[in-house]
């Protein structure tokens, strides 16, 4: 089975002699990848909203007002209010925190653990590789959402448990991709050379293999970010993620929201837009990053 992401190690992609500064790299990225820059802008906006939710949100996201149930979107409540009279805009803003927290922590943990397993598997080979690969096969064959669902039911509804439930299915996917690259990096003459020079295994792995699998690692990390946010939303929607009254986007869409379709469609509208926009930003950015890191996809 081949990995869904192109596998490249792109350390040698910068032309020799003209190292770009970070600022120049960023400018180049913005100029050549306008869609990716747009994605980065969305992510940045989302981060700012999450960081400064206390300042930006017009109301307390937890406090209901029973005189104000199902208020239409207005100047006072831009996104209207929900069935408890809570301000939807404020809840969407605080929801960015949960989404980003789960997204970043889960995909970072899942990809790092998976990446390490992939490097170990590729470098040690033999029995270690065989056993790790079978383990990854098992995790891959286990339906992703059902695995997350089962883990979430074991651990109970809490944000940190959702992180675990979202991270575990990411591990085998990252391991696959990183292992494939590490296998080809391992065959390079320079690895043979340092081994011949008597370098310790640890040194070979940490100094020569790990840096060269960073590109696929970063690619899969950005690719998983959006997916992690979606899984969190799906879990919360199914009632196994974060619990009420936490303002999580998936949770805001679950249960009662669709049943108020006629009365108050905005309750189901805005959290969905927030999820889509956030994941859209991450995907646009990740996509362009992959194009930039992968010399094969560059326009000739």
């Amino acid at each position, binding site marked *: 089975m081949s990995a869904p992401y192109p596998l490249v190690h792109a350390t040698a992609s910068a032309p020799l002699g003209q190292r770009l500064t970070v600022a120049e790299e960023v400018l180049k990225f913005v100029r050549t990848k306008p869609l990716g820059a747009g994605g980065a802008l969305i992510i940045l906006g989302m981060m700012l909203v999450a960081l400064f939710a206390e300042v930006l949100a017009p109301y307390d996201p937890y406090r209901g007002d029973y005189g104000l149930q199902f208020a239409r979107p207005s100047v006072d409540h831009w996104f209207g209010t929900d069935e408890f009279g809570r301000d939807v805009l404020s809840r969407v803003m605080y929801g960015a925190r949960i989404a980003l927290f789960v997204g970043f922590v889960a995909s970072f943990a899942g990809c790092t653990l998976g990446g390490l397993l992939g490097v170990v598997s590729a470098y040690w080979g033999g029995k270690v590789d065989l056993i790790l690969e079978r383990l990854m096969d098992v995790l891959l*064959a286990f339906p*992703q959402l059902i695995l997350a669902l089962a883990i979430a039911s074991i651990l109970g509804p809490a944000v940190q448990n959702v992180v675990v439930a979202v991270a575990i299915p990411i591990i085998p996917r990252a391991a696959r991709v990183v292992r494939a690259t590490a296998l080809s990096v391992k065959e390079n003459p320079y690895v043979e050379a340092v081994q011949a020079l008597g370098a310790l295994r640890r040194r070979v792995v940490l100094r020569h293999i790990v840096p060269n699998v960073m590109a696929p690692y970063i690619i899969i990390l950005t690719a998983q970010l959006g997916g992690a946010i979606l899984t969190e939303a799906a879990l919360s929607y199914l009632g196994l993620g974060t619990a009420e009254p936490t303002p999580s986007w998936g949770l805001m869409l679950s249960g009662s929201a669709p049943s108020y379709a006629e009365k108050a469609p905005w309750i189901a509208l805005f959290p969905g837009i927030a999820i889509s926009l956030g994941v859209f930003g991450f995907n646009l950015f990740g996509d362009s990053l992959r194009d930039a890191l992968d010399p094969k996809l560059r326009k000739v």
Partner: protein
Amino acid sequence: MRTYVAKRLLLIVPTLLGVASLVFVIMRVIPGDVTLLILGGDQAGRIDPAQIAAMKRRLGIDQPLLVQFGTWLWGVLRFDFGTSLWSGRPVVEELLIRLPLSLELAFAATLVSVLIAIPCGMLSAVRQDTWVDYVIRVISIGGLAIPSFWVGILCILFLVIYFGWGPPLEYTPPWVDPWANFQQMVWPVVTVGYRYAAVTTRMTRSTVLEVLREDYIRTAWAKGLRERAIVVRHALKNAMLPVITLIGTEFAFLIGGLVVTETVFTLNGVGRFVVDAVARRDYPVVQALVFLIAFGFVIVNLLVDLTYAWFDPRIRYR
């Protein structure tokens, strides 16, 4: 080729055994006792312990775990997945009631999205970095970004507001009343299919892009072939392999799509059945479903790999 097939078939055994053990362990680790749930609530001490023990014996979950596991595995080998702890009916029977709906949904969604996705992906690649490419890319990235349950909710909002729609009470198979079936299934298919189409479009685009850089494409241009012949006959054919793989890798997502879509549209399919079964701690049902899904996943991926090996002899000899 024969050794390759044999090797791949042998590798299925440990994977499925691993899945079987994992799902068995997970279901026993999930807190919440099924006997208490069946007897009504978990108010500790209110239910007679003798009654609980009797119920456990009746359900066959009073045995040691290893015995239970052995019995279950032995059953799986004979395609006997036991009986549901809740309904008391054989799990296979319960599944067969719900399978036609889920299969139709999965099949229709795959078919529709592949038919849309491959031409779009190809067009996007051939016209890279033009407005056509940007439009197709934005729509397809959107398909990955928009949660399928929200697409479902939007469909329902739309239907309720404009058509006074209510959820169908019972599934009508296409062979009974094709029109009623179409009305029931079209929105769920859109919900599941959008994501599928998006993923396939993106894959087609990037593989066609890669293939278009190959030397033989330049040769084809140099020969003076028309663009259409080059793209369809030379590029697309060679770009199709990774797209076929995608059917395998996306299978897991398809199942996830079924779970949420069936929940949104309150369809009585396999996906919703598994969510309910987890919530009700119906061990045999979850075990059977996860095992069968994993089995399907492994078989689909095996077929994909074999197609690959068939097309590309280099893989066989590795």
